[in-house]
């Protein structure tokens, strides 16, 4: 443990100041990315605070007001069963957040493990692992996710497993490309020369340096997961009614598109905003991490 000296405290302050400055600069350089980051933060906060913010429990019915339009009493209106759409959107945000996090965790860990192993070990192991990855790439995602979700049985949990199963190969390709470069770097060879094990080199040196593109992909993957989960729920292979998942809400309200437009449209706009937020954030992070794009 180091004792904190005035000099180190000053250095820490300067570092924090410089981080804040570079964040501000980044926000100014890419206002869309900053909007994406704000959108994502708002989405996460709304999801976490749903029980505090929701005016009603998500399944509470007020049949006497069913299909009430958006107004002062019900800001986003009521659905065909008299349920408050705002409350269901807020609780739905929690589900979407969970879907995004679980899919990114499952797909990210699996894909990165496969990709780093392939890139770092090389040889036959690389060949075999990348052919397996190619097989998963040969399927359009929704088709494979639907087949897996159908086989597992329709539920949101199984949909998450299915989506992770179709999205991990991107992480594998990205992390393999990183590992191929990093394993030839001097610091990796130095670590090997002082006798560190391969696992230790990967965890301590390769993985932290490969994280940039993987974080960008994680942001895109969050949006993609929310979109595919909603699609699966819409056709009956994901969350099941009366769960307030956004895809389920659009599906349940589909007959009201021309008469009570808000019933299917509000959840669709929620999906649009959340996915746009993650896509913008991903775009912005990619631009920030890519020196070529940064200069343009």
């Amino acid at each position, binding site marked *: 443990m180091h004792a904190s000296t005035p000099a180190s405290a000053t250095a820490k302050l300067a570092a924090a100041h410089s981080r804040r400055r570079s964040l501000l600069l980044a926000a100014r350089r890419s206002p869309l990315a900053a909007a994406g980051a704000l959108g994502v933060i708002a989405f996460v906060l709304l999801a976490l605070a749903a029980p505090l913010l929701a005016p009603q429990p998500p399944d509470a019915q007020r049949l006497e007001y069913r299909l009430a339009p958006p107004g002062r009493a019900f800001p986003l209106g009521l659905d065909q069963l008299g349920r408050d759409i705002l409350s269901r959107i807020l609780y739905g945000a929690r589900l979407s957040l969970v879907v995004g996090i679980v899919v990114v965790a499952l797909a990210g860990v699996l894909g990165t493990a496969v990709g780093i192993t392939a890139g770092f070990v090389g040889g036959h192991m690389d060949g075999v692992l990348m052919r397996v990855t190619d097989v998963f790439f040969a*399927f*359009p995602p929704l088709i494979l996710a639907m087949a897996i979700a159908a*086989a597992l049985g329709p539920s949101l949990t199984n949909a998450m497993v299915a989506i992770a199963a179709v999205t991990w190969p991107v992480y594998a390709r990205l992390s393999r490309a990183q590992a191929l470069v990093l394993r030839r770097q001097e610091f990796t060879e130095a670590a090997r020369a002082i006798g560190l094990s391969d696992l230790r080199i990967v965890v301590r040196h390769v993985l932290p340096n490969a994280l940039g593109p993987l974080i960008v992909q994680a942001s895109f993957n969050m949006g993609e997961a929310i979109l595919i989960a909603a699609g699966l729920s819409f*056709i009956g292979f994901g969350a099941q009614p009366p769960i307030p998942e956004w895809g389920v809400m659009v599906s349940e309200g589909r007959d009201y598109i021309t008469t009570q437009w808000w019933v299917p449209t509000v959840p669709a706009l929620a999906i649009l905003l959340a996915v746009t937020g993650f896509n913008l954030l991903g775009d912005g992070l990619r631009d920030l991490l890519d020196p070529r794009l940064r200069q343009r």
Partner: protein
Amino acid sequence: MARYILGRIASVSLVLLGVSVLTFFIAHVIPADPVLAALGEHARDDQIEAFRRAYGLDRPVPVQFVVYLGRLARGDLGVSIRTRRPVAEDLREFLPATVELGTAAWLVALLLGIPAGILSAVYRDRPFDHLARLGALAGASLPVFWLGLVLLGVFYYRLQWFPGPGRLDVALSPPLLRTGLLLVDALLARDGAVLRNAAAHLILPALTLGLFSTAVIARMTRSAMLDVLYQDYVRTARAKGLPRRRVIVLHALKNAMIPTLTIIGISFGSLLSGAVLTETIFAWPGLGRYATASAVSLDFPAVMGVTLVIALLYTAANLLVDLLYARIDPRVRYG
């Protein structure tokens, strides 16, 4: 080049073998009971036994896999549990509708996406660029199933500008099916009424399905054009006094198309994926709708058949793109 093509075909064959292993795994190892789905909960034991024997489900899994591969090599995809017809026959019936829709959506994506991307790059940071980028962003994030509902609701129910779900009005009788592609068959039969009606039926689903790919292609084209527009050779061409349009189309676009081509190939997969949702909304009798109905009833021979055929189409599209890539870009070295 010939060596490269042979190598790619060999690697594609390997991938397709993997695809068949994976689809088999999904259908046989993941715990769901197709027997229960086909016969219902109240089926008698002897019925269940007969069903399992009929579909070979009573044999050990490795034996089932070998039998499955043997059949696959002969083009036999098994018999659908739901329709009781050979899956290959079902696919022959439903595939043309998806190919027609997918091609139309692809055209929408190319005709809208590429010009939008080019103009966006040429007029960088101007109002058109901002509008196009925002549109592309929304297009890539919009739930396609909602867009389909809105287009149907507005342009069919409300305004009645376009016909409703399906491929053809009920009042019209389809032409003699030669290719299964209604537009082509109507042309061959010189049936103008069917041709017009089928084309009108195609517009809303093609727009719905094509939107996502339009957005992706527009973004990629813009980015690739920006990369190229600031290269020295483009500046030189302009300095030589060549007209701006000529430089953009002949010098810049040609090189910008190389990365765009990859995305165009990949977008074919997203079109097939999106077809599941679009066909469900527009009651389009294609592979996507067939796949959804089959998956609901745990009809695994059918689901495996669709998955395999779609993976085959997807892989073939990517192979085609790779070959085009090698042809267009002389810098690409293969060996």
